[in-house]
Each structure stands twice: as structure tokens, then as C-alpha cells.
């Protein structure tokens, strides 16, 4: 699904956000990018999403090389992805329904079908009662769930979630992780960026530990006590 080969990203020459990242994520995997604040987690997800371009190195997503294809195919690629942004990126003055429906609207899906699917996914994240509210008046956790709903409503082949439970309490976090697991079971590849150790324990998953823009190691956790598998900087899998 995702191959990164010796990828570097420097926003400014002084502070490289990512250096020499090589990573291979298979279709259907459930991967955590784990690291402290400023480690480069968001940057990594943005590179996969095509929202940022690597300063060096190759990124291949779904068989497409980001360095090669035409700009105009990016939207088509994105329609197969879902992204939960760390800052949500919701339209603050549109209703929750419109926000979630937008991801389907751009594909040209029919109104009735949009309605059906949006209602379903809002039920999953526990926001059925908030359908006609605007995000502006929602609580932080509610906004985050709208962002999650939008990311999964188009049943993406790849779900990228940036700190998707940062504003959710323990109970809701559990619910959302369960939801992600279900989606994963249906075949969606999932990559979650987080700084929260607790998240890692939800199920046996691959964890890519990031620090100062470098891969510190790759673990598999969840099976009672994390055991390290591959090594730093490593070609994983």
C-alpha cells in the first residue's frame, strides 16, 4: 500500500522534520506512528496524503509514485483515502451533515445515497443527535468525531488519522478504536499518528516509533508486552 524510500523532509534547512525514512506498509495493516510532540508524525501522514512533498526520496502510495504522476490525479487518489486532521479542518459554518457529506459529494454520489451513508457513519461515532448543528458550537470531542466520520464515510482503502482521540475521553477512545478495528477488518489500511502510549495497547499492531524525524524502531504491541521486531531506520516487513 505505502512504500517510503529514504524520504527526507526539510521545511527549513535548520530543522529537518523527517530524515531518511524508509517504511513499507502492506494493504490491510494497522499501523501506529508513535512519537513525542514535534517528532514529525503529522508531516509523515501529510507526505502520504500528498499534502506535502518530500525534499528527497520516493513515496509510492497504492502503486502510484508521488514524484511522477500529474497533479490532476491527486484528487482521484484522495478519494480512496480518509484523513482525520489533527486540527479537524471542518467547515465551521456548515452543518455536521454537510461536512461529512462533502467527502461523498465531491465523488458525485447521489443525494439519497449520501444521506443514507452519512446517517450511518454519524451513528457509529455517536453524533446522530447533532446532525444539523454547525461544528462551531460543538465540543472539542464532538468536532473530532465529525472529522473521523468524514474520513471514513467514503469507505477509504487507506485511513490516515492524526491524533484522532486527543480530544476524546477514555470511553469514547475505546469506541473509536473499536470502530477503526472493524474498518480495518473490512480491508482498510489504517495509519494512526499518536503520542498516546495507551492507544498502542488496543490490539496487536505495528508501531513505528518516531523521534526527531527519525525512525527509532518498529515494534509490535498489544500481545501482552511489546516486543521489538525490526530495527531502527529499518526496512520493515
Amino acid at each position, binding site marked *: 500500500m505505502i512504500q517510503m524510500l529514504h524520504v527526507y523532509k526539510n521545511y527549513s534547512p535548520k530543522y529537518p522534520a523527517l530524515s531518511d525514512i524508509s517504511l513499507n506498509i502492506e494493504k490491510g495493516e494497522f499501523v501506529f506512528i508513535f512519537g513525542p510532540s514535534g517528532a514529525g508524525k503529522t508531516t509523515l501522514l501529510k507526505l502520504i496524503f500528498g499534502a506535502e512533498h518530500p525534499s528527497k526520496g520516493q513515496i509510492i502510495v497504492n502503486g502510484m509514485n508521488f514524484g511522477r504522476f500529474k497533479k490532476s490525479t491527486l*484528487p*482521484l487518489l484522495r478519494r480512496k483515502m480518509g*484523513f482525520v486532521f489533527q486540527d479537524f*479542518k471542518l467547515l465551521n459554518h*456548515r452543518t455536521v451533515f454537510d461536512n461529512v457529506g462533502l*467527502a461523498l459529494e*465531491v465523488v458525485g454520489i447521489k443525494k439519497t445515497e449520501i444521506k443514507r451513508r452519512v446517517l450511518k457513519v454519524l451513528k457509529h461515532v455517536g453524533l446522530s443527535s447533532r446532525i444539523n448543528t454547525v461544528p462551531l458550537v460543538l465540543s472539542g470531542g464532538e468536532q473530532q468525531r465529525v472529522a473521523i466520520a468524514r474520513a471514513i464515510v467514503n469507505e477509504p482503502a487507506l485511513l490516515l488519522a492524526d491524533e484522532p482521540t486527543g480530544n476524546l475521553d477514555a470511553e469514547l477512545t475505546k469506541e473509536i478504536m473499536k470502530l477503526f478495528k472493524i474498518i480495518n477488518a473490512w480491508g482498510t489500511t489504517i495509519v494512526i499518528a499518536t503520542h498516546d502510549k495507551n492507544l498502542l495497547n488496543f490490539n496487536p499492531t505495528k508501531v513505528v516509533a518516531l523521534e526527531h524525524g527519525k525512525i527509532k524502531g518498529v515494534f509490535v504491541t498489544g500481545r501482552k508486552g511489546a516486543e521489538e521486531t525490526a530495527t531502527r531506520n529499518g526496512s520493515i516487513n
Partner: protein
Amino acid sequence: MKRFYYFINKAFQNLRHFFLINLITVGIISLSLLVLSTFFMVFLNLQTYLNKLRDQIQVSVYLADGNTPEDISLIQKKINSFPQVKKLSLITKEEALSFFKDSFPGQRKALENLKDNPLPASLDIQLQDEYRGSEKVKIFARQIKNIPGVEDVEYGQTWIEGYANFLKFMRSAALAVGVVILLATIFIISNTIKLTLFARKDEIEIMKLVGATNFFIRVPFFIEGILQGLLGAFFALMVLFFSYQLFSNWIGQSSYFSLKFFKIFFLPFHHLLLITAVGMITGLLGSFFSLGRYLKYE
């Protein structure tokens, strides 16, 4: 086709959603176009009025006193054969005298003492429209003067040249002012739209993030821009029309004005279309160029 319906729908939805912003935009477009069309209307009316003045140009041919009535009708025939001539009318010596007396009542007594009628007979020529230019009249006058029996030809040389100059001056001044207003209108409309897009750049960014193509994002904005231009033009022309109505009524009722002196007319249909087109096209292009900026985001 279904796609198109969606876009139209979306555009209207946006107009409604950003109601206040759109109201202001339409208001600004409207007023810019109002200024433009008011200028147009005043200019066209003035030009028509000045053209009417030009229609009053006529060439007077003074005939020598020695001509017999037969000579005169021969001269008439000769002049009539010129393509420049639209209408020809004879003023006999007697008519000239009585006209003179009417025009200068102060001198009537003096003229009554005369034994001979000192005034010559003359032919008044009205010219075809295409021969009313100052140069063309000059040439025509010279030709007529060569006809035997014609003593002199007059056509208000100084006036006709002054008029031509004035018209030229007016036209170039109006052209300059018109171009300024037109450019100002286009600049204001397109930049107003640019300002409104500042407030909506989040929307564009987010649409790109969920996989909308540039085309998909653009089209509703284009339609919105066109609609803004259309609405702006509509309101501008409505206001202009009602002001026109009020104004002509006021002229009609006013005791100061003889209606025939100033009968103003409204903009002709193709000018209305032109102004509407200016609104719509700048609305479209305003959206087009402003969007470019934001569509670069990824």
C-alpha cells in the same frame, strides 16, 4: 447534465449561505455598473442631441439678381442632381425681405424706406446625412459656386468647424472618462470577488483535501460570479430605469423645459446587454483569477 444541475444548485446554495458577503458584493457590482451605465446614458443622450444640432446644417445659395425664373429653375435642377442634396427650397427676394423684417423688427422702419429690395433670392439646401462632414460641405459648396447664376454660397463655415471640434473633443473626453470608469468597474468587481474569497479560502482548502478536483471546486464559484454580475447588472439597470422615469417625468412636468428641447431616451437594448455582459464577464473572470491563488494549495 445532472452534474450541471448540481453545480447550479451549489452556486445558489453558496449565494444563500454567504448571504451577507454576497449582498455586499452584489451591491458593489451594482453600484459600479450603475455609474458606468449612467455615464453611458448621459453620453449617448448628449451625442444624440449634438447630432440633432448637426442636422440643422444647411447650405444657402444666393442667386444673382439678373436671373429669370427659368434660369432659377434650371439652377434648381442642376443642384438637385448632386447626390449630396436631400431637400432644396427656394426663397424668393420677397420672401427674403419679409423674413428679414420679421427677424429684425428694429430695422423694419428703415427697410420700408427702400425703393429696391436689396436682398437676393436664395436656395436652402438640406444635405444627405453622409455629406454633413465639415470637409465634405466645403467641397460641395465650391462645386455649387461654379454654377452660373450663383452669386455666393454660405454654410456657416466657422460654426461647422467649431462644432466638429467640439464633437471631437467631447468624444475623446468621453472616451477617456468612459475607459476610466470601465476599468475601474472591472477592477472593483474582480477585486471585490477576490476579497470575498479570502473569507472562503478554508472552504476551498477543505474541498481539495477531501478529493475535489479543481474543476469541481471552480465551477460553482464561476456560476456564483456570473450570477453576482447578473444580479448586479439587473439592480443597476433597474435603478437607472426608475431614475430615468422619474427624471423624464420631472422634465415633462417642469414648466422650464420645452419637451422637444430635451427629450432624453433610455439606453438602447444592445447597451443594456453590453452592461449586463460586463457584469457577468467580470464576475466570471474575477472568480477565475482569484481562485487560481487558492487552488494551488494541496
